[in-house]
């Protein structure tokens, strides 16, 4: 609907321009003609004036002369006529008051000193456009007088009837054409409409012409109907697509929610290294918001220089996945937090790579595990090599004959013997620990009678208790519960704790060994009246090879593995071990193991 309006508008503008320009052209042509006529007239008049009596100053110039002059220049308009004598003084002048002052001096000079006819256009000081015709009159070869005639160009009217006729005619025809064209179109459509309407009702048309039209209109209707159907089809497809899009959007949102729930950082970059997705974990790590990151260059939001260059240097053509990982720390995060960054390329459906995915995960736990493994190896090396060193050093001294004193020789042999025993014990402890750790997989789960475990543990430490004259008080329940587990392992765990209780209790002291049921748990309690455990040491006593700085504890023999093994065994049995302690009063170890009948029941 818009196009015809524009065309009509353009047409009107065109007509308007025509109406303005055609009279203008006419006007200029008229003016040129007029100008030419004035020039011719002026030239002739000046010629005549030069021959007239006035120019020879032979008769007195009367008003009728000028009247005649005015009449002959009526179309142009006489402005002035001045006749100068040979001394260039105006002798005869016909001019409304003071016209001479309005004529610029240059014009006067030019007229008065010219040797022949001259003609010049100029503007009066009051603004009027003038043409001056001037001619000197010579008598006997000498200048006698100068005739000057100032004529005004008559103004032709711009919109004269003549000027307007042609454009008006053109405009009229255009308008006529428009109106005619419009109605013609409307009428033809109306015709078809009527015919279409008529055809619907009328079944039979006798004339052949009408049949043809009917056929054509029938075809038209058919095509229109087909088009209608197609439109409906397109519409339903569009709706399907829209609902499909909604499902896709929903799935994408689900996926993004999953990405955001990851406990590692994830970021996707396009081929220009601009981020189009970053998950919450990554944002938290960078301390940024989504809008700081999306579609921004890396430099603007990754302050970590190494990470930035790591991402930038990775090319999309890289074939190997995670070819090199980068370990890094963030100054903003807590110390001891290590992160591992890796990059992989994501291929699209055609197999070309256009997306970089950057993953960053916290590996502090792995690092910690690696460190504790390293520490464990170092500890074992230290613990094994210390007795070995002693054996070697003492033996070397003996062999070199450096020890001649018999008492000293005895001492040396004893040390070698003791250190050999210490080494042997240590090795069996390490083996036991290894077995326990492997035991997580191989532990036999039988029904274990708690009375058997308690009594056999007591038997095992009996000799040691006698040696230190320590009384072991037992607090047995009326009914011993059964627990599910490996009886040898459980026995060994209890012996370790009991042994420690005896070791750290002074001679002639008391140790209590009891069992009770609390809920689903069988609870063993071992209470000593020993030196107690320092608060600094308490959190570490179940660590492998942990040794207190406390001199008393330090000087006690031990592998540093006993409680570590115990805690490992209890863990295998889904139990807990807890310790409460007070310095110089003693310690209370509580071991809770789930009751076995419960498991079976």
């Amino acid at each position, binding site marked *: 609907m818009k196009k015809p309006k524009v065309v009509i508008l353009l047409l009107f503008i065109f007509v308007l321009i025509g109406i303005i320009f055609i009279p203008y052209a006419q006007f200029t042509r008229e003016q040129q003609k007029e100008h030419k006529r004035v020039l011719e007239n002026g030239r002739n008049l000046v010629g005549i004036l030069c021959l007239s009596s006035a120019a020879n100053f032979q008769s007195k110039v009367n008003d009728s002369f000028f009247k005649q002059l005015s009449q002959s220049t009526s179309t142009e308009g006489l402005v002035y006529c001045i006749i100068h004598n040979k001394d260039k003084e105006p002798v005869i002048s016909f001019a409304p008051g003071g016209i001479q002052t309005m004529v610029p001096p240059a014009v006067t000079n030019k007229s008065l000193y010219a040797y022949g006819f001259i003609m010049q256009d100029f503007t009066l000081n009051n603004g009027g456009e003038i043409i001056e015709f001037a001619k000197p009159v010579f008598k006997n070869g000498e200048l006698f007088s100068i005739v000057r005639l100032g004529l005004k160009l008559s103004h032709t009217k711009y919109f004269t009837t003549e000027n307007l006729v042609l454009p008006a005619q053109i405009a009229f025809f255009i308008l006529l054409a428009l109106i005619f064209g419009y109605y013609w179109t409307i009428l033809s459509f109306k015709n078809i409409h009527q015919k279409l309407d008529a055809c619907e009702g009328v079944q039979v048309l006798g004339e052949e012409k009408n049949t043809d039209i009917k056929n054509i209109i029938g075809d038209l209707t058919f095509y229109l109907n087909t088009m209608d159907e197609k439109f409906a089809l397109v519409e339903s497809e569009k709706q399907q697509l829209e609902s499909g899009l909604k499902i896709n959007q929903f799935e994408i949102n689900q996926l993004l929610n999953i990405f955001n729930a990851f406990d590692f950082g994830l970021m996707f970059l396009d081929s220009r290294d601009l981020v189009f997705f970053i998950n919450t974990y990554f944002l938290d790590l960078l301390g940024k918001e989504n809008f700081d990151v999306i579609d921004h260059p890396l430099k603007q939001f990754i302050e970590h220089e190494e990470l930035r260059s790591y991402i930038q240097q990775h090319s999309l053509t890289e074939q190997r996945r995670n070819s090199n990982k980068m370990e890094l720390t963030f100054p903003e995060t807590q110390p001891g937090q290590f992160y591992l960054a890796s990059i992989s390329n994501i291929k699209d459906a055609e197999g070309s790579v256009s997306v970089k995915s950057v993953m960053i995960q916290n590996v502090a736990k792995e690092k910690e595990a690696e460190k504790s493994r390293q520490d464990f190896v170092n500890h074992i090396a230290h613990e094994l090599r210390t007795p070995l060193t002693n054996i070697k050093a003492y033996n070397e*001294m003996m062999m070199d004959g450096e020890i001649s004193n018999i008492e000293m020789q005895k001492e040396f042999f004893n040390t070698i013997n003791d*250190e050999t025993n210490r080494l042997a014990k240590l090795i069996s402890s390490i083996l036991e620990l290894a077995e326990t750790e492997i035991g997580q997989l191989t532990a036999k789960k039988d029904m274990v009678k708690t009375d058997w475990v308690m009594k056999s543990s007591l038997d095992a430490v009996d000799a040691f208790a006698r040696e230190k004259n320590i009384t072991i008080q037992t607090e047995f329940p009326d009914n011993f519960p059964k627990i599910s587990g490996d009886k040898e392992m459980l026995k060994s765990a209890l012996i370790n704790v009991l042994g420690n209780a005896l070791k750290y209790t002074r001679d002639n002291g008391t140790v209590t060994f009891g069992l009770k049921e609390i809920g689903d748990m069988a609870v063993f309690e071992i209470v000593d009246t020993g030196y107690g455990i320092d608060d600094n040491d308490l959190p570490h006593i179940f660590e492998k090879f942990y040794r*207190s700085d406390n001199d008393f504890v330090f000087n006690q023999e031990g592998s540093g593995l006993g409680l570590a093994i115990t805690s490992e065994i209890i863990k295998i049995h889904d139990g807990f071990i807890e310790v409460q302690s007070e310095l110089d009063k003693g310690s209370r170890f509580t071991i809770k193991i789930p009751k076995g009948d419960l498991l079976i029941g």
Partner: protein
Amino acid sequence: MDKKKTVLIIDDDLHIRRVLEIKLKNNGYRPIVAKNGQEGLELLNREKPDAVISDINMPKLDGKAFCLQTNPIKEKRPFLTIVITARINPDEQVWINDLKDTLFMEKPFSPSKIVDSLDEYFNGPEPG
């Protein structure tokens, strides 16, 4: 022979202290003993020994901390340090290499070797 050289032995293991004490005495040195780095530091300041034999794994102040703390003293008063380690892993060697007049010896060590090192430090390499 001039005044006996004093050697500070720092080890938490009683037997090692004992055997080194005897070995050094037999070879003309004056041994003094400390049970940990803390005690060692006190003895070092008081007795100004000519050499130190130190274990690494010790309670209170370990051998590494002891060495790092005492290294600046060597600028004014040089002395030999022999570090006895149970296990030398590459990064452990790095800090030892950075120290002045410091050797390391791996466990199980030989007492005679220690005496040889001390002799060499005080008297220069043996001829032949």
